């Protein structure tokens, strides 16, 4: 059939891309570990599977018992995510960007989904050091007290739910403490100093630091003058060391650093613990973030304008630019389509030689991202890798914010930002995987390749649904009532999934007019799929309410 043959090229290419993503168990394992459902996995494939399934069953049982979602909602979500139900639910719960609100505080001594989530959230902000699977108790309350104090919130429930919205946490800090607290005084010990990717003397420009400070901060001139005299002094004997030491060890500074570390971790720039200690890793990640920011925004913000080495291992970091950027990410933005259009037009205008260079650079970044992603997953499965953030909201916002400059970045800035770009594409690949899977399902449905087969007591039921809805079923005679129900549920599940996929294909087709105008690479298609999937996530409730 000619039309199927034509679609085969699309399906083959999409499936080849999807096959490179690998399995999802690494993510599930990380989430289950973080919630205390799973410790070390035993050796042997069978034993590993049994242990993993037991942890998943426990999670699902606690999810049902928690009443965070009612039964109807759970049923809809199950129908939507089918085999990926547990993975998707875990991802939603673990998100610190638009995380699911907890509806009730646990009682002392209880271990349930809420207590685990509270421990996980507190732990991510460095306020709880035990395993999340411990009972809700005194240690939890200590963490909650500190949190409520820093965020000036009286209710335990509100405080813990605030942690599931990281921009909200920053906004709250800014509104309570003002800009001045965004000047972070930090101490780095001698060993950590050796690990820095830059020389401390290169970030000792009082003029550059002060210039940025006076531009960024709406501070009183008196404060600025005092700061220049007491902190940015050329002579170390004139520095007010007691003030510097005091500010570098106070609890609030420590908490704000933890909040920034969570943001940097979620952006893929920070691999260390969110412990509030701003060692070499944190300072290096600030330098990396700045490079990426500069390349993505055609800006030239030098590190010395945001970081100043006072001496004796003490730095002062102007975190306001970074904080403002994070807060901006929370603002609504509907320019996704513009970004895709602009990207496609730009790539279409490349000269032959630039196009070849773009393709070579892009492939190099993608290959590196795929290899790293694979290694990262292997390590995560063994519990030895770094913790990976799987949420998507802020990432997508960042993606589309720098999106218009992606072509330029890949073409001209590759050497400078290769690692960051590779990390960035790891996230694109991860998110694109979900979009691509739905897309493949949609195409298969359209060309009639989704038979629904149910076997029950050695009897068979087959239903074949055509693209336009025509349905052909053959059922063995006799076929038990239980068999009918099982088959019926399966048909409904596939058809709901297919409706979703068909809607996704529709979204992609709407963007075709841009794609067909010029050169288009898979990353751009993935951007389109990502955008389309996001739109559909908003619509899916409508489909599943019926």
């Amino acid at each position, binding site marked *: 059939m000619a039309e199927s043959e034509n679609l085969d090229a699309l399906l083959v290419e999409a499936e080849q891309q999807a096959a490179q993503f690998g399995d999802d168990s690494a993510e599930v394992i990380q989430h289950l570990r973080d919630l205390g459902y799973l410790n070390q996995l035993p050796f042997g494939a069978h034993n590993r599977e049994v242990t993993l399934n037991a942890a998943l069953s426990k999670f699902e049982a606690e999810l049902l018992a928690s009443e965070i979602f009612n039964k109807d909602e759970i049923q809809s979500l199950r129908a939507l995510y089918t085999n990926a139900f547990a993975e998707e639910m875990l991802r939603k719960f673990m998100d610190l960007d638009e995380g699911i609100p907890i509806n009730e505080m646990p009682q002392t001594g209880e271990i349930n989904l809420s207590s685990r989530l509270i421990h996980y959230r507190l732990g991510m902000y460095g306020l709880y050091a035990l395993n999340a699977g411990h009972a809700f108790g005194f240690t939890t309350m200590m963490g909650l007290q500190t949190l409520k104090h820093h965020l000036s919130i009286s209710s335990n429930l509100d405080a813990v739910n605030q942690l599931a919205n990281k921009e909200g946490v920053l906004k709250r800090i800014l509104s309570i403490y003002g800009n001045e607290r965004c000047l972070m005084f930090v101490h780095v010990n001698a060993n950590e100093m050796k690990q820095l990717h830059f020389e401390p003397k290169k970030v000792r420009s009082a003029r550059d630091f002060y210039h940025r400070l006076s531009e960024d901060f709406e501070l009183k001139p008196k404060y600025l003058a005092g700061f220049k005299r007491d902190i940015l002094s050329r002579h170390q004997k004139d520095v007010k060391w007691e003030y510097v030491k005091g500010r570098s060890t106070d609890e609030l500074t420590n908490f704000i650093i933890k909040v920034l570390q969570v943001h940097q971790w979620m952006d893929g720039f920070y691999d260390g613990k969110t412990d509030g200690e701003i060692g070499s890793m944190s300072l290096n990640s600030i330098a990396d973030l700045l490079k990426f920011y500069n390349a993505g925004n055609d800006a030239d913000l030098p590190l010395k304008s945001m970081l100043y080495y006072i001496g004796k291992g003490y730095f002062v970091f102007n975190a306001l630019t970074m904080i403002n950027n994070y807060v901006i990410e929370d603002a609504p933005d509907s320019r996704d389509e513009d970004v895709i259009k602009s990207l496609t037009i730009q790539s279409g205008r490349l000269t032959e030689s630039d196009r070849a260079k773009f393709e070579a650079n892009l492939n190099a970044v993608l290959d590196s991202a795929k290899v790293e992603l694979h290694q990262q997953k292997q390590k995560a499965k063994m519990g030895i890798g770094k913790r990976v953030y799987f949420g998507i909201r802020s990432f997508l916002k960042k993606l589309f914010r720098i999106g218009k400059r992606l072509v330029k970045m890949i073409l001209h800035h590759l050497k400078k930002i290769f690692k960051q770009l590779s990390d960035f594409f790891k996230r694109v690949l991860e998110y694109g995987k979900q979009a691509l899977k739905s897309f493949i399902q949609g195409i298969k449905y359209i060309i009639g390749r989704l*038979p629904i087969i149910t076997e029950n007591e050695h009897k068979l039921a087959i239903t074949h649904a055509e693209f336009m809805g025509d349905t052909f*079923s*053959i059922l063995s005679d006799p076929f038990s009532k239980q068999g009918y129900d099982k088959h019926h549920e399966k048909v409904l599940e596939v058809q709901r999934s297919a409706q979703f996929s068909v809607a996704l294909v529709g979204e992609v087709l709407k963007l075709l007019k841009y794609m067909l105008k010029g050169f288009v690479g898979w990353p751009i298609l993935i951007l389109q799929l990502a955008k389309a999937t996001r739109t559909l996530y908003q619509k899916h409730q409508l489909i599943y309410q019926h």
Partner: protein
Amino acid sequence: MANLEQAFKNLKANIAKKVDDAVSLDVVTFTGNFNIKVGDVIGSDQNKFNLENVLNSMKADVNADLKLVAYSTIKLDGDQVNIVKENLDSEQMELVKFHREMIEASQNSRKAIVDMIKGLVD
């Protein structure tokens, strides 16, 4: 990349063609005693459902006894024709119930396609 672009173009054209052809919605349910190997259902391509193979396999199986339970065709203007087997016992009534549920599911699928087309035209 050219193939990919062409494939997308074809996809759009094929969708339009299929919608033009779709003047009615057909739902058919059979029952019977039959033996089908999994290989007959999916053929050599694991992704491909091969209806022809299934029917050929039944033809080859002398014991295969395929009975129509119900056939429904629903025209675009809303006219509906239903053919349902006579003298149904309670077990076969379950089959008719299943058939009705398939009609509802098919209509929902059709609606999804029409919504998608509307989205493309708008």
